[in-house]
């Protein structure tokens, strides 16, 4: 599905990603881990077209997508759920979902997909007409995920879906992501929470100082807790 090769990104005179390469196979969940400033969000932003990489290639299937405008990245099938959720606070939950499908023209399909999201997130159904800014953090995260799904992505990028949520809501998030996985969604998950990554990811890559320092099967993350701690800087 996704193949990243030799990706390098610079902020001014600083190289923040150096020769980063990994793949996300069809239907799998791959985790990208690392401490603050390791380059996780930079990688996602390069994938989404918010940053232009200086070197390397990003391929979705056979197609090069590096350097595309964010709109064209969404059209190609990659949609990001940003960290901190970034819902549109003064707009209703429903309008947030409607705009998630801004790249689509099939009205009937959009209406069906809104129903599908409300089935997936029953808590949102009764709050369709509520301003998204009035929701709890967990519900805003649901809106952000549902909004991303409205674009019918092939690959979902999730930037710290557990960030700032209570342990109980984090469990709910894990269930939701598992459900998406079961439905065949391919997911690249950025996580600092080892528990969440271990519970979900088939493979985990650990970034340090802009380079991939370690790759391990998700199930083995918890066995290497000590090693991970040194990489995650905690």
């Amino acid at each position, binding site marked *: 599905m996704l193949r990243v090769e030799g990706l390098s990104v610079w902020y001014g005179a600083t190289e923040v990603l150096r020769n980063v390469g990994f793949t996300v196979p069809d239907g799998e969940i791959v985790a990208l881990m690392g401490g603050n400033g390791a380059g996780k969000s930079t990688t996602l932003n390069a994938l*989404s*077209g*918010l940053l232009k990489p200086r070197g390397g290639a990003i391929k979705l299937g056979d197609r090069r997508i590096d350097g595309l*405008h*964010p*709109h064209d*990245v*969404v*059209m190609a099938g990659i*949609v*990001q759920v*940003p960290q*901190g959720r*970034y*819902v*549109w*606070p*003064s*707009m209703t939950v429903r*309008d947030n979902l*409607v*705009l*998630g499908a*801004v*790249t689509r023209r099939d009205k009937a399909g959009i209406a069906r997909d809104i129903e599908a999201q409300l089935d997936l997130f029953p808590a949102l159904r009764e709050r369709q007409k509520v301003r998204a800014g009035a929701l709890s953090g967990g519900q805003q995260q649901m809106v952000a995920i549902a*909004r*991303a799904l*409205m*674009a019918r992505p092939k690959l979902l990028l999730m930037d710290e879906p557990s960030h700032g949520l209570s342990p109980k809501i984090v469990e709910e998030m894990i269930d939701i992501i598992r459900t998406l996985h079961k439905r065949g969604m391919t997911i690249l998950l950025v996580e600092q929470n080892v528990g969440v990554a271990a519970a979900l990811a088939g493979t985990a890559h650990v970034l340090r100082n802009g380079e991939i320092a370690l790759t391990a099967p998700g199930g083995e993350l918890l066995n290497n807790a000590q090693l991970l701690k040194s990489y995650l800087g905690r």
Partner: protein
Amino acid sequence: MLPFLLVSGLTTGALYALVAIGLVLVYRSTTHINFAHGELFMVGGFLAYTGVVILGWPYVPSLILAVIGTFILGIVSDRAIFRPLIHAPGLSMVLATVGFSFLLKGIGRLLWGGRGEFTSMPPIVDPSPIFLAGLPILPQQLVVLAAAVACMLALAAFFRGTTAGKSMQATAESTRASYLVGIRVERVYMYTWGAGAAIAAVAGCFMAPLTLLSPDIGFNLLLKAFAATILGGLGSMGGAVVGGFAVGIIESLAGGYVYTAFQDVSAFIVIIAVLVLRPQGLFGTRPAREA
């Protein structure tokens, strides 16, 4: 005298509100104050003048000419001036819009100047007053008021009911989220500059027959609209409307009861008073934008 002053204040206030809405529209979406906004108002007024007086067209086609002309002007200015500066520091944009205002003023003088200090525009409807409940009211004032309110309602419907309107709203609230769902943010900015200019032109068309036209009229209007947005709370659409009406009425009352020359000063006094007493304005909150 009071009812008369109130009616005239409401009429000019409605036009200030329209100009202020355009200013807020652009500010919300792009976080920039368009200092050329008053000149777009002026160009709109003169385009209508070109239609009505120079070409002898009826009023409605002239209005359409003004709206389409300034809309295109707004879009061209975005492509030529503002988009290249999209990532430049805020001050560059301020200077760019100020520079653009001088350019428009120069073009205005070139095309429509030299007709005496002020150019008059024929009235839209019969200028003789009618009496409503014993009040002498100019039919023109009613037309202006109705047009301004219709314009505001149309805008509200646009924001609530259309994907384009929602995309503008979304871009104003979170540029990042808008990029990530695939909204063409640069295009939204472009249409926002165009729409802001077109709204200013509508106000210009209706103001021209009431007052008079001059290529230098823009700055004064920008000032009034600016006072309205400061009063209403910078970034609030509803605030711009309320602020516009308030500035119109305050100005009318100040001119009627205090001193005629006080009329134009009152906008300054509003700005200063609001900044001292309630800097966020009547309906303003701190702009809720990401860093």
